């Protein structure tokens, strides 16, 4: 039996054979090949993900379901998750991105939550590379067209450019929904004797075994992978959302699961295994849009806009009538039964029979060899004295501000409807996106961020920095972090150095989550992000959700007023390692990112929250990419107000201004609040920088730029 052509490894075949007491047949092998792929089984990372803290006082539902849920108070929950759709977006950028958005929306819907906002993580290649224009335009249009039509606003995101994504762009989609805690729908509540129902679009040959395609390196001839690409229909998704929520409101659903990777097989076997029931499926009853589909094709098709429902027989008629109203196909394709047997019938013949638990959990884990790269410590060698300070400071600033990773990305976010549903208090272009909850005082704060360059130089510190950045941004805005979701985008785990970086990154992230009390409630892993021309940087992306008690507690950024005093809180010894400045100089990414200090981060977050709640500042911004210089320029441009800054410290000005890392923020404080502000930050590094006012932003001994000049650079970008 040549199992390798189904993507099955020798030990996996042996495990299947031992569990079944016989050789699996071809249909079963194809099913296991996809369900035991990296994308579906997490066989290389399951044991690593156990390091994440997943519990906390606000966690209602942790990893394991379609998404995580945190408690917003008064019986309301926020369901959220981020998911990658990298390989499809590399091959067919428009459809790949569109279906990525559709997929994550269904994950949220599957819990019975109404999707209220999306964000996107976009990682594009060098803007000068011939493929970048085509890929980025297609991906952005795909995200926009799908989200806009479905009526879920895209309220924020992260966009990064680096040559490592030339051939392998990344698309990470985040979605958040609201659900009453006593109305959460689960995939674990099916009982024997109930109906298995397929709701939504017809099943076709698109996206067959896409999960397996996402579990290997991208082939050179990407066209070969086209049959693995799914096609999105946002109109059908909108109907599906309304139908599922109506079914939930009418209490007609016992259990629900979205159909994403590995389609019917994955969704139905998961419900069976998690609920502890068996299942009989009759594939003749699946509404098809292609003729003569083989049973394994039906099993593994990733046709979009479908949901699997478990329905009590007495409710089926009502379910059908709701489906008719929303003009959706609705078919009973099987029934649940006692036991663990998962069987597929086709034209009266049993074509597959596997234990449900074997499909989801039976894949033997892989512990790839892990080894710290030999050159690792030498990457940190960095001779600061060998780096001349900018000769022309203004030019250096303008080049930094014009860097495509730094600009506001108006060309992207204006293609997204960021306002539909009437909840967007602070939308794209801001470090924290803020949503109101209708009928309530409290607001939700959302951040999506990544720092692959620091993860490359030191994956532990970079991983920790990534998590910390999101928490800093939320705290400064006045949002208490409730939990986070992550997409772990990495290259092949089969290279020992790359596997080691994955381990270290996860350890660093876990350390930061633990220190900051911000548990991981959901997420996904995307490996094999590499092509013949190279591997991507380690790219963990983090989406963190926080709660702001009331609109008065929200501290905006870019809100300087004439006469405000500007303060830098946090240490004055940032690192140029992996900074946007060093990268825009075209210097090798060398040096070591700052060490993560859980105590300092926690201390910072508490003080930042107090600053927002006590209204001790007009404006606050956590420092991130581009360091203090970028924060000054952004706040100044958005406020339409200049400032005169004098840096009265001996540290090199380029390091202070452009260095990154650590718990730091820039505040503008009205004179009357200065004593309160200083009291809050007493015992934490706090440096008075100067006064806001005028129409020029100048830093003594460094740059001096008209505010209008900065605004001009960013106006059309």
């Amino acid at each position, binding site marked *: 039996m040549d199992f390798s052509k189904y993507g099955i490894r020798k030990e996996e075949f042996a495990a299947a054979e031992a569990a079944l007491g016989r050789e699996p047949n071809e249909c079963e092998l194809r099913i296991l090949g996809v369900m035991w792929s990296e994308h579906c089984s997490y066989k290389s990372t399951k044991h690593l993900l156990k390091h994440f803290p997943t519990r906390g006082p606000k966690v209602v539902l942790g990893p394991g379901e379609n998404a995580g849920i945190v408690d917003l108070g008064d019986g309301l929950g926020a369901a959220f998750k981020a998911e990658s759709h990298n390989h499809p977006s590399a091959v067919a950028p428009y459809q790949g991105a569109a279906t990525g958005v559709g997929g994550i929306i269904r994950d949220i819907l599957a819990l019975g939550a109404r999707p209220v906002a999306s964000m996107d993580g976009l990682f594009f290649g060098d803007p000068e590379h011939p493929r970048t224009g085509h890929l980025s335009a297609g991906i952005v249009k795909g995200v926009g067209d799908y989200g806009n039509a479905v*009526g879920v606003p895209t309220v924020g995101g992260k966009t990064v450019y680096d040559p490592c994504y030339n051939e392998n762009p990344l698309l990470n989609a985040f979605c958040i929904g609201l659900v009453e805690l006593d109305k959460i729908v689960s995939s674990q509540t099916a009982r024997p004797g109930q109906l298995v129902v397929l709701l939504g679009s017809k099943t076709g040959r698109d996206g067959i075994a896409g999960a397996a395609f996402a579990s290997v390196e991208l082939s050179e001839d990407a066209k070969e992978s086209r049959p693995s690409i799914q096609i999105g229909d946002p*109109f059908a998704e909108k109907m599906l959302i309304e139908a599922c929520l109506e079914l939930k409101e009418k209490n007609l659903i016992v259990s629900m699961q979205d159909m994403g990777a590995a389609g019917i097989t994955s969704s139905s076997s998961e419900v069976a295994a998690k609920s502890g029931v068996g299942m009989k499926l009759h594939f003749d009853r699946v509404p098809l849009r292609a003729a003569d589909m083989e049973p394994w094709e039906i099993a593994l098709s990733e046709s979009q806009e479908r949901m699997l429902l478990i329905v009590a027989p007495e409710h089926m008629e009502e379910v059908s009538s709701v489906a008719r109203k*929303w003009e959706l196909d609705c078919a009973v394709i099987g029934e649940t039964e006692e036991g663990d047997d998962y069987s597929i019938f086709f034209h009266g013949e049993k074509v597959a029979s596997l234990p449900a638990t074997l499909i989801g959990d039976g894949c033997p884990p892989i512990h790839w060899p892990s080894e710290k790269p030999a050159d690792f410590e030498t990457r940190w060698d960095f001779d600061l004295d060998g780096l001349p300070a900018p000769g022309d400071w203004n030019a250096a600033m303008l080049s930094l501000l014009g860097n495509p990773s730094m600009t506001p990305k108006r060309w992207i976010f204006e293609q997204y*409807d960021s*306002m*539909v549903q*009437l909840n*967007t208090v602070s939308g794209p272009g801001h470090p924290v996106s803020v949503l109101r909850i209708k009928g309530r005082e409290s607001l939700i704060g959302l951040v999506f961020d990544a720092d692959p360059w620091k993860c490359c130089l030191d994956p532990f510190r970079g991983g920790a920095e990534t998590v910390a950045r999101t928490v800093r941004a939320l705290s400064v805005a006045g949002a208490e972090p409730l939990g986070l979701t992550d997409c772990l985008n990495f290259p092949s785990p089969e290279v020992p150095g790359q596997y080691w970086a994955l381990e270290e990154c996860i350890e660093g992230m876990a350390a930061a989550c633990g220190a900051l009390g911000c548990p991981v409630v959901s997420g996904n892993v995307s490996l094999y992000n590499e092509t013949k021309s190279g591997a991507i940087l380690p790219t963990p992306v983090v989406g963190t959700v926080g709660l702001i008690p009331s*609109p008065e507690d929200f501290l905006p950024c870019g809100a300087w007023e004439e006469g405000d005093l500007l303060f830098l809180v946090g240490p004055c010894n940032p690192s140029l390692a992996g900074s946007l400045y060093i990268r825009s100089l075209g210097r090798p990414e060398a040096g070591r990112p700052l060490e993560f200090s859980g105590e300092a981060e926690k201390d910072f977050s508490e003080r930042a929250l107090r600053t927002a709640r006590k209204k001790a500042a007009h404006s606050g911004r956590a420092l991130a990419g581009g360091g203090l210089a970028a924060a000054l320029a952004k706040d100044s441009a958005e406020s339409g107000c200049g400032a005169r800054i004098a840096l009265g410290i001996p540290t090199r000005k380029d390091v202070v201004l452009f260095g990154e890392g650590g718990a730091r923020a820039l505040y503008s404080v009205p004179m009357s609040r200065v004593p309160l502000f200083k009291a809050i930050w007493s015992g934490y590094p706090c440096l008075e920088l100067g006064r806001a006012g005028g129409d020029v932003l100048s830093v003594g001994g460094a740059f001096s730029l008209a505010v209008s000049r900065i605004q001009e650079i960013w106006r059309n970008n």
Partner: protein
Amino acid sequence: MKTAVVIFPGSNCDQDVIHAVRDTVGCEVNAVWHREEQLPEGTGLVILPGGFSYGDYLRSGAMAARSPIMGAVKEHAGQGGLVLGICNGFQILTESSLLPGVLLPNKTLSFICRPCFLSVENTDTPFTGLFEKGQVVQFPIAHGDGLFFLPADELNDLENRGGAVFRYVSPGGVGGDEWNPNGSVNSIAGIVNPQGNILGLMPHPERASEAILGGEDGRLFWRSVASFLEKGGRRHGLL
């Protein structure tokens, strides 16, 4: 001001407009499914909301214009009842020939979502009575097909009768290509029919009706309609 908001498959601003009208005017608002053939008794204002009815497949608004409810909407309009189409609703009104012209793809060929400044050019309509003539208001746009087009002679007619109610302008009220986001002829953002009871506009007043969302100019729009209906209900000259 009893209001009916029609929901087509793919509408996605229906709940938003219901929220904004209720929140501003506090009146009865009914959601009406597109398969209905009657409007609720006593409806004063019908709103066709924004969204992507039928996914914008075929052509924006083309299929919704043929929905069963549109018969009742036309009847309501024919009797002088008020009809408002916002964004996709405006597209449905032109596709139903209730308003002249057509909405073409934006000049950028891309979807655009951003706040826009509009001047209120005609305050003698049921929808704009409480605005000052020439007042600049800020309503956001969010559309892919928002370039309003009319042939030159029809455009002249429209302009001569004051049919262009809203125009894209600068924050200071000056016109120009720079402030016309989608390339509409004469920077037209919203028009009214000759009888004055049917208004279509691409920008979203319901997204500018609460301070927490960044603007309240839309409230005057809803209050204008409410005030018109309270004073007499129907457009004079018709009934």
